């Protein structure tokens, strides 16, 4: 999906985003939930039961496909024929993972219903990690600096430059894709990590916009005190202003990491050699190479699971921040 489908930063209430909001937002949340408790009492018993059933259906409907992915990845391909309806893994095996990680020998892979094609998700996993860390670190660091320049520093033409910056937010991703591909090709960077990372590593207009909101909210008297103490602009940035915005920087870094981890079209164009293939692209190749008549479903799901597990982990650790950030992007 495009850059435009992502959450938009808050326009007026920077404090409520992220997980670590200033203490002032806490009481409001309590008041709200008490109000809803009252709402519970006015709801009839029947509609409450209906409501919970509906929510249950949604939760099960959301989680079940993930379970089916896990169930399939730990089964053999023969079991797909014999027990297509079994809710638990059939003939439990790690064979699919060995196959997609390139650990299993070709004959083993063929015997278990793999295509025998050379597929190495271990390498793709590593490639994805390197590229996504590279992009996230570069983009968030440079965007933070730019957001500071737009949000805290005062200089002539600032608002004009910022307005021009915002135009970049409106250009759909598909539009810059072809010219950027040509540019990366001209730079001789096709099929390199740098080539994949380059268009995103310097900044994202979205991140600059997002973080600027929070820099605008930083208490100026703290910064002015630092100036009086003789701290330079750079020192104020990384010792005072940036740490104040740290929770938001972490949140946006996680969101951007997930975005680039999931990205498909750009790395499909730019990373086509074995050593520059990212996980999503590898999955696409694996799917297209798998025999039409008897696809290696277990292998496909094992590969898909490898791409999904890092996100599961991030969601478990940072779910609250991610949810808070998305919710705050909706209310203006």
């Amino acid at each position, binding site marked *: *999906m*495009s850059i*435009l*489908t992502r*959450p*938009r930063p808050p326009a007026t209430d920077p404090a409520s985003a992220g997980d670590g909001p200033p203490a002032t937002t806490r009481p409001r949340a309590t008041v709200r*939930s008490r109000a809803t408790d009252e709402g*519970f009492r*006015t*709801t009839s018993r029947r509609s*409450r039961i209906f409501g*919970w059933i509906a*929510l249950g259906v949604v*939760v099960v409907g*959301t*989680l079940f*496909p993930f379970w*089916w*992915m896990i169930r399939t990845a730990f089964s053999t391909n023969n079991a797909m024929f014999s027990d297509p309806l079994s809710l638990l893994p059939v003939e439990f095996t790690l064979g699919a993972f060995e196959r997609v990680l390139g650990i299993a020998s070709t004959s083993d892979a063929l015997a278990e219903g793999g295509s025998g094609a050379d597929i190495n998700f271990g390498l793709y996993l590593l490639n994805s990690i390197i590229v996504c860390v590279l992009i996230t670190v570069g983009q968030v660091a*440079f965007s933070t*600096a*730019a957001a500071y*320049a737009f949000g805290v520093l005062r*200089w002539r033409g600032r608002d004009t430059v910022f307005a021009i910056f915002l135009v970049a937010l*409106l*250009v*759909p991703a*598909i*539009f810059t*894709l*072809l*010219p950027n591909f*040509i*540019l990366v090709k001209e730079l001789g960077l096709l099929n390199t990590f740098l080539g994949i990372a380059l*268009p995103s590593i*310097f900044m994202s207009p979205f991140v600059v916009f997002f973080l600027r909101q929070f820099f605008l909210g930083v208490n100026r008297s703290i910064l002015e005190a630092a100036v009086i103490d003789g701290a330079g*602009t*750079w020192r104020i940035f990384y010792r005072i202003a940036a740490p104040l915005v740290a929770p938001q920087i972490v949140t946006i870094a996680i969101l951007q990491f997930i975005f680039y981890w*999931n990205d*498909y*079209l750009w790395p499909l164009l730019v990373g086509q050699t074995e050593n520059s293939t990212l996980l*999503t692209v590898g*999955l*696409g190749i694996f*799917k297209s190479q798998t025999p039409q008549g008897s696809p290696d*479903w277990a292998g*496909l799901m094992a590969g*898909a699971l490898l*791409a*999904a597990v890092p996100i599961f982990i991030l*969601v478990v650790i940072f*779910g609250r921040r*991610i*949810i808070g950030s998305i*919710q*705050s*992007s*909706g*209310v*203006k």
Partner: protein
Amino acid sequence: MLFLIPALIGFTAFFAWPTVRGVALSFTEFNLLRPPEWIGLDNYVAIANDPVFWNSLAVTSEYVLINIGVQTAAALVLAVLLQRFTRSMVVRGVVLLPYLIANVVVALVWFWLADYNLGLINSTLDAVGFDRVGFFGNEALAMPTIALINVWRHLGYTTLLIFAGLQAIPRDVYEAAEVDGAGEARTFFGITLPLLRPVLAFVLVITLVGAFQIFDTIAVTTAGGPVNATRAITYYIYERAFDRFDFGYASAMSVILMLILGAVALIQLRVLRANDSDLER
């Protein structure tokens, strides 16, 4: 201005310059090997006479209508349910999860679930005595199937945005309605929906612009087929550029797509009066 230099490089090299270049390329014939050759409006004329292009607009619209329609309605219901029944972060996290997983992964999981021979859905249909359904192989069903897969992926995200909008509606409005004896349905259509309008407008613009650029799911499941049934505009642009090395033609289609997106966003903001809330009147 050291703080701004990296971002300015990025902006100039990878946003501003490619935008200018993309428009310029649309007036050329360019296959990457020889330098671009200026051909004026020829690409646009050819596109106007290209049935595959018009078809791609039609199937993209079909995708957008089904995807956005179902998704927005379902998200509205789900957001109200969340608001009424639970504040649980775990429930919200679960609902959001598919949105955070790669399109490619989601597409593959559903491709497997809906597989004709061995997939769970068809095996179940078969077991209870129905005919198997070729979700991806049937021209009439392929695009709706893809649209619904992406409803599953985006539902949680859309729900959270609407949920946040619901939270912002002041309680006393509801209390007043209750005192006046308004029922559930009347409260929803008379109060909730109108007060939610700015948030809904924002959600619709964001999700629509994204939906028009559908690519990943198509690329890993149907690759545009059967025949042209899922050859959406972005996928067609990709094919023209990277299978047929027709970069000028592809650029011209990108320009058209950008204009369509701009128009759609503008019309929506106008119609839905996104910037003024009924609360302030």
